[in-house]
């Protein structure tokens, strides 16, 4: 069954919707397409044995990263996960330096030392992807404490998958965030699976009750619909910036591909049918249909965006492939400041 059908999701408020002009929606369309094409390229690089390590694709979840980050300022903070390419791009990272990092090149965001699971982009407030599930809950919460202490109005968004709900560390951080009214948003991307195990086998009770138990405001949204995600994000981010304390946003979504590129035969943990049903609600398709129904300036504006993005992706991948690896001398640099 299509799990989103059973979700208690509110219809969108037309007034709120129209408060955002079409250009902004087109921006988000471009942002989602960029993530999609970036990941398709990653898939090619990986299967073409050009990319080492592991590749956890964000395809299918684009609406979450874009809907949230479009509501943030450049100086707002995010922390990300092993499935972090989408968050990184949505926060404004450039494609070429990301590809370079994924290929372990010196031109990469982390000089090739971090890799896919550790990209950080300080200039845009991305404090880094994290390969420890739940591991960044403290970093995001601490960034929020720091913003409060320094008297800035920066907001911190902690992206994590629903698997992180298993880590007690998350509740320790949420408890303190609530006690100290920190400007942090816990952004749970519930794509239904912890690797190969369905979240219903790992999560007792109601997810919403967990943040609420720590006095944290809860919101739930259809993570396949960038409009729903973004409208909620705007509200929550404003509230958080005003100093009203932490929130928890549960985004119901789905990863269209395997847990990582190598996860091809998925029938032992989920059905083709389930995958197909979710793909009917492809976030890019949904936004496209709505934009078209709303009427576009000219018919191929979306096509032009697709082309621009594709060109950027091609150039970025090419740049990364050509870029040199770090010198051997780099290996023991940056262990200490």
């Amino acid at each position, binding site marked *: 069954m299509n799990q989103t059908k059973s979700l208690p999701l509110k219809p969108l408020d037309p007034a709120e919707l129209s408060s955002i002009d079409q250009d902004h929606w087109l921006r988000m369309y471009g942002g989602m397409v960029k993530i999609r094409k970036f990941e398709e390229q990653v898939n090619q690089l990986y299967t073409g044995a050009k990319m*080492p*390590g*592991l590749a956890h694709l964000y395809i299918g979840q684009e609406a979450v990263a874009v809907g949230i980050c479009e509501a943030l300022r450049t100086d707002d903070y995010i922390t990300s996960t092993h499935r972090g390419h989408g968050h990184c791009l949505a926060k404004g990272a450039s494609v070429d330096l990301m590809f370079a990092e994924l290929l*372990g*090149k010196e031109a990469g965001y*982390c*000089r*090739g*030392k*971090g*890799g*896919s*699971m*550790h990209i950080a982009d300080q200039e845009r407030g991305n404090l880094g992807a*994290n*390969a*420890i*599930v*739940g*591991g960044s809950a403290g970093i995001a919460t601490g960034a929020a404490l720091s913003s409060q202490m320094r008297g800035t109005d920066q907001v911190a968004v902690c992206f994590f998958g629903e*698997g*992180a*709900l*298993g*880590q*007690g560390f998350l509740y320790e951080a949420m408890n303190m965030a609530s006690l100290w009214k920190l400007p942090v948003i816990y952004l749970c991307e519930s794509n239904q699976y*912890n*690797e*190969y*195990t369905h979240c219903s*086998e*790992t*999560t007792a009770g109601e997810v919403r009750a967990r943040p609420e138990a720590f006095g944290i405001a809860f919101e739930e949204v259809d993570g396949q619909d960038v409009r729903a995600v973004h409208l909620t994000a705007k509200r929550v981010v404003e509230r958080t910036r005003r100093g009203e304390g932490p929130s928890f946003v549960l985004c119901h979504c789905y990863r269209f591909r395997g847990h990582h590129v190598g996860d091809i035969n998925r029938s*032992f*943990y989920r059905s083709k049918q389930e995958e197909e049903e979710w793909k009917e609600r492809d976030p890019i398709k949904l936004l496209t249909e709505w934009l078209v129904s709303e009427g576009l300036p000219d018919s191929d504006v979306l096509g032009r965006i697709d082309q621009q993005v594709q060109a950027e992706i091609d150039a970025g991948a090419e740049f990364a492939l050509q870029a040199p*690896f*770090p010198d*051997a001398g*780099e*290996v*023991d640099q940056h*262990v200490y400041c």
Partner: protein
Amino acid sequence: MSTAEANGREITLGQAVREALAEEMRRDPTVFIMGEDVAEAGTPFKVLSGLVEEFGPRRVIDTPISEAGFTGICVGAAITGMRPVIDIMFGDFITLTMDQMVNQASKTHYMSGGKLKVPLVLRTTLGATRRSGAQHSQSLHAWLSHIPGLKVVLPSTPYDAKGLLKTAIRDDNPVAFFEDKMMFQTKGPVPEEDYTIPFGVADVKRSGQDITLVATSSMVYVALDAADLLATENISAEVVDPRTTFPLDKQTLIDSAKKTSRVIVIDEGYQRYGVTGEIAAVIADGAFYYLDAPVKRIGAMDVPVPFSPVLEDLTVPTAESVAAVAKSLCTGN
């Protein structure tokens, strides 16, 4: 029982681990497995494939992503009559289990004056060069080797893995069992018959006269390859595998050092304050009057494991780096 009795039967280290688990679970109904994606998925490394089909989800238990929590639950189950085998996917994640392993499991028997016991096995991985980045590539076995009340096992061959894992499961103490994630496909002779390998007995993987290479886990292969390189220079290297860092077979290590008078200790953990320091200190003390050269150590470079392949490969010991040091020790320059 020895590899000889395998009469031609070869299996991978991953299969050896699975056989040990399956056979012990058949032998003893109190043995069960708990961890993330251990059941249908059989772990991301597929080491446990098939076990849930034979033993069912009550004995091969998928957990939430709660390493501390399910390790603690296994401590409680062990104290009350069960024999849990904990699966911690990547050795880097044992950081999350340290309170339960170190403040609880390792001390319960002693603190209770010998009344309570904690017969559990924590299986996890070590080893770099998988391009997994700094949080999925560490070899943290030195930490657990430091803790009284724990035993620590580092198998290097399928034969050792099966025999040592059976011993670990039958042991009444908490045991940490580290498997090199790059070795799961390594093949070797393993007999059909039931056998165990006692802890605290080092194994001489290759005997030699001129220098002793003490190596753990996959570093045994690095040492064996180094020995081949050295042989071409007429240097005869002995390769000794402690197999367990605790209990440590000091005598075999010291005797080999006395025989060859030169020693290099090779381990994939961070070099400083790690396994190489302890073993080097033990040998330098025990064989002091026999050594012609200082005991040298080659651990992993003391840096977080970098992602970029060109850098990552520089951080681990290699046959070449070991052979180079060995040669300078033997030729005195």
